[in-house]
Every structure is written in structure tokens, then in C-alpha cells.
């Protein structure tokens, strides 16, 4: 038929999988991906999950002066099932870690994680000599964006959010899934 699908292993990091697959179908998929990426990055609903001081700064981000609703980010869902984004705002200790893991597992795909503040990034002020604190939430769940600060300023949060949006734009969720499927069939 003249159409050769590249195996996943053949695809290099910069090699866009879209062009090499089909001529007709791939463009549709690429546009779909772009559309889903657009929808996802503009509608990141966070989970109301806060443990320490960063949660207060997260509240300040939501308040009138900074107002994250401008990014479509304001629909904070208390239920994990409807959230897209966990913002780990605060310390995660060994008792909380299984809870966090479970919350992450309960979240529907696609899901994103943001580590807000020093504690979630590395344990922060509790890195040394603390017996209870996990040294960074990425020991528990994968983190997409790290935001430094103790606690980070709201502006830092916005910068992190934009970085996450950039990351989502690059997602090739749909095309990759198709590729994975065809890979499996082979």
C-alpha cells in the first residue's frame, strides 16, 4: 500500500510521529491532538488538596488580586474524579504519602501534578533530620512541574501553570495511543 508505519522504537524524540504514519489520517489526528491539548491546557481543574502554608498561598492565587480563574483554572473540585491537576501544596509525610498515591490513582487520565513549594519539591526545610517527611513528593507520584519557594509567590504559581500548559501543548496523547495500539497489533 505504500504506507509504512514507523515502529515506536524507530521514532526519535524530535521526529514527529504524525508525518510519518499516514498522509491522510495523521493530519486529522494531529489536529485532534492539538484541539485536545488546547482544551486540556485551558481547563485545568485543580483538586482542593493542601497541607501546609503553600495551600494558603494557593488560596491567595485564587483570590481577587491574582485570580487564577483567568486561566480557566478556578473550578477547584473537591472530588478527585473530576480533577485534572493535583497541586501538592505542602509537606507530604510518610503517613500522608499513601493517601496522596491513592488520590493520584483515583484521578482519571489525563492527569497532571504540580509540586508547589520547597516541601513538595524536596522536603524543603524538613529535608534534614526529620523522621516523618518524604523528601520530595516525586518519591510518591510523578510530578510535572516543580515550583520553588517557601511558599512560592502567586506569580511563581502562574509561571508554573504556564509551564504546565506548554507541556500539555506538546502532548501527543491521541496519536501515541494509536501508535501504541498498532504496535501491539504487530
Amino acid at each position, binding site marked *: 500500500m505504500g504506507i509504512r508505519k514507523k515502529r515506536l522504537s524507530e521514532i526519535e524524540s524530535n521526529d514527529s510521529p504524525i508525518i510519518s504514519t499516514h498522509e491522510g489520517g495523521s493530519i486529522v489526528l494531529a489536529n485532534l491532538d492539538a484541539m485536545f491539548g488546547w482544551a486540556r491546557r485551558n481547563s485545568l481543574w485543580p483538586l482542593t488538596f493542601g*497541607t501546609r*502554608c503553600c*495551600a494558603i498561598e494557593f488560596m491567595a492565587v485564587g*483570590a*481577587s488580586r491574582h485570580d487564577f480563574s483567568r486561566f480557566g483554572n478556578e473550578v477547584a473540585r473537591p472530588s478527585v474524579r473530576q480533577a485534572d491537576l493535583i497541586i501538592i501544596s505542602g509537606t507530604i*509525610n510518610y503517613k500522608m504519602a499513601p493517601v496522596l498515591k491513592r488520590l493520584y490513582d483515583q484521578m482519571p487520565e489525563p492527569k497532571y501534578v504540580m509540586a508547589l513549594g520547597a516541601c513538595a519539591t524536596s522536603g524543603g526545610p524538613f529535608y534534614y533530620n526529620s523522621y516523618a517527611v518524604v523528601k520530595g513528593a516525586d518519591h510518591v507520584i510523578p510530578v510535572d512541574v516543580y515550583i520553588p519557594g517557601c511558599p512560592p509567590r502567586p506569580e511563581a504559581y502562574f509561571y508554573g501553570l504556564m509551564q504546565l500548559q506548554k507541556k500539555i501543548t506538546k502532548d501527543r496523547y491521541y496519536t501515541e495511543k494509536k501508535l501504541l495500539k498498532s504496535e501491539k497489533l504487530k
Partner: protein
Amino acid sequence: MAEYREIIFNSDKIQTDDYFVNIGPQHPSTHGALRIVAKLEGEIVQSIDPVIGYIHSGIEKMCESLSYPQLIHLTDRMDYLSAHMNNEAVCLCIENALQVEVPERVKYIRTIMDELTRIASHQLWWCATGMDMGAMTTFFYGLRDREPILDIFEETCGARMTFNYNVPGGLMFDIHPNFQKRVKDFIRYFRKKLPEYDTLLSGNVIFKERTKGLGVLSKEEAIAWGVTGPSGRASGYSCDVRKLHPYSAYPYVKFEEKLATDGDTFWRYQLRIEEMWESMKIIEQLIDNIPEGDFAVKMKGVIKLPEGEFYQRVESARGEFGVFIVSDGKKNPYRLKFRSPGFSNLFVLNELVKGVKIADLVAIMATLDLVIPDIDR
């Protein structure tokens, strides 16, 4: 109420009328990582068991390996909403142990910062209470008025929440030249805005219906359970450390210790609003009279406390905050204990919620003003 454990493990004890609901650790109304195991019958709470430790970070253990100036920054992260009072408690404790007299200027600035912190804390509490009651707009009104205070803090010490502004012997650095003007501007602004809080929430008939006569705590109970701060004063228990054991510039100012007798949720709410008025009065008395002088006394390079035990109480935004240092003469404490107001306030909850609805449980919890890292440490 450890019976839920038995029930889980002994299935023959299961009753069909009662059931257990886990509220938290991830739950919008627990203000952090608190878990409450509630035994319910229908909507009615039979008893609860607070399970804490989801944010325990071992601060007391960490302090044992830190020197005194170093450990102050950890106190910021405990009760982050009254960070300045926590800092001050440790500093006062160290200063009293070393018998260092700080300059008057330091006392004034500390007191002003204390009261600003108290206002900011109560504002945030007000937001959270409104949200727990289902009035979302309070959240935005409260945080709107909190931002000017945070601006003052930021200009003074560079941080919005975790200041680390106090050091043993004084302050980290002097106040910004704009400080007095900014504070006065804020007071003028907030005197206009505070009545809005009444209009929006406490003047509302639904709010009054939901809070009056709910979760009554008698004076005797409050004392026995060690409930302090506005929660204790709502029960008529005069426990204001600022009055009883004055520190910093509190002896120089005139202010009222607001007391109520009802001890219900409404008065716990109302007293915090009134405390904000009192705090503004205190600041107004001090702000124009900040004496000239040094912002810190010269301390030794390595601070070593004499052998012995030292206790210092301050009034934080949530109640009586205490620092207990056992020193063995070395540069770091032998044992350091923080008496956090939230810890005592939390465990009275079981007494208050028997026979109320779930919604009331949330309301009572909100007006006890719990900050979980303060409890867990």
C-alpha cells in the same frame, strides 16, 4: 472512640444503624490534612475521632539538632497564620533565659506585627468559615483585605507568610521607612471594610440560624479541655495572655479582652470579628509612637542558654502558644516542646459535636479555627 477499629476487625459487631464516615485527610473542610472518623446515624453525628499526624513533620525532633537562631524559622511553618507570634515566643523565651532586655523599639514593632498577623489570620479564618458554611463570596472578600497586610509584611521582611523576622535579641532588620504610612493606610481602609463582613455573613439570617446555640462549650469545660484563644473567650473564660502575662509592648496599650458567655458557634465567630477591631485599636496606639533606637541588641555569635527549663506563653491568633525549652547549656536545646493552641482546641471537638448534623460538624470545626500543621507540628 477507638471502637471503629474493633468494628472493622470484628465483623459480628457491625450495626446497621450507625456507620462511619471518613472526613479527610483530603477534604475541603478539614483545612489541611486532618482526618475525622465520624460515627453517624443518618445525618446525625454520634461521636468523632480526630486522627491527626498526616502533616506531622517532627519539628520538635529537628529542633534538638538546630541552634536557637536556626530553629526559629521552623516555627514559621507550624502555625503559618500566626507565624510572627510563634517566632516571638521562641525569641522571648531565649531572651528571658539569657535575661536580655530588648530595646523599646523592638517591643513596639513586634507588637504591631503581632496584631497585623492576628488580623490577617482572622481574615483568612473568616474566608474559610464562610466557605465551610457554603458562602463562597466570603473567601474573596477576606482575601482581598488580607493582601494589603501581606504587602506590608513583604515590605518589612521580604516574605508574605513565613517571616523569620524575629531573632533572639530583636529583629532581623529595621522596618521600612514606609511602614508607618502603609499601616495607617491599611487601618483606615480596613475600618471601612470590616463592617462589610457583618453585612455579608454575620448579618445573614441563615448564618445566624445555623450558628446560634450550636456546639455550646461551657466555661468549666473550656478550662478543663484547655481551650484558649477566641474559642475559649467565647465561653467566658478569660485567657488572654496579652492581659494575664503581658509581653512586648502590650503593657503600654489599652485594649479590651472581649468575652462572651454563650460559648456557641456564633460567639466564637463574633469574638474573632471583635478581636480584629481591638487589634486595630492596639496598632493605632502604637504606630505613631515607635521610639527611635536600635532594632536589635548585640547577641553573642553562638547563643547558649543556661541550664534549666524555660517556658514562654504568647497569645497567638488561635490561643495560647507556649514554648518549653529544656536546656543543658549547649548551643541547641535538649528538648523543645511547642504547646500549640490548636492541639487542645481540636480534642474538645468530640464534646461539641454529639448529636449535631454533619453540616454543623463542619461549622463547629470552622469556628474552632484549626490549623493542622499547628496541631501536628
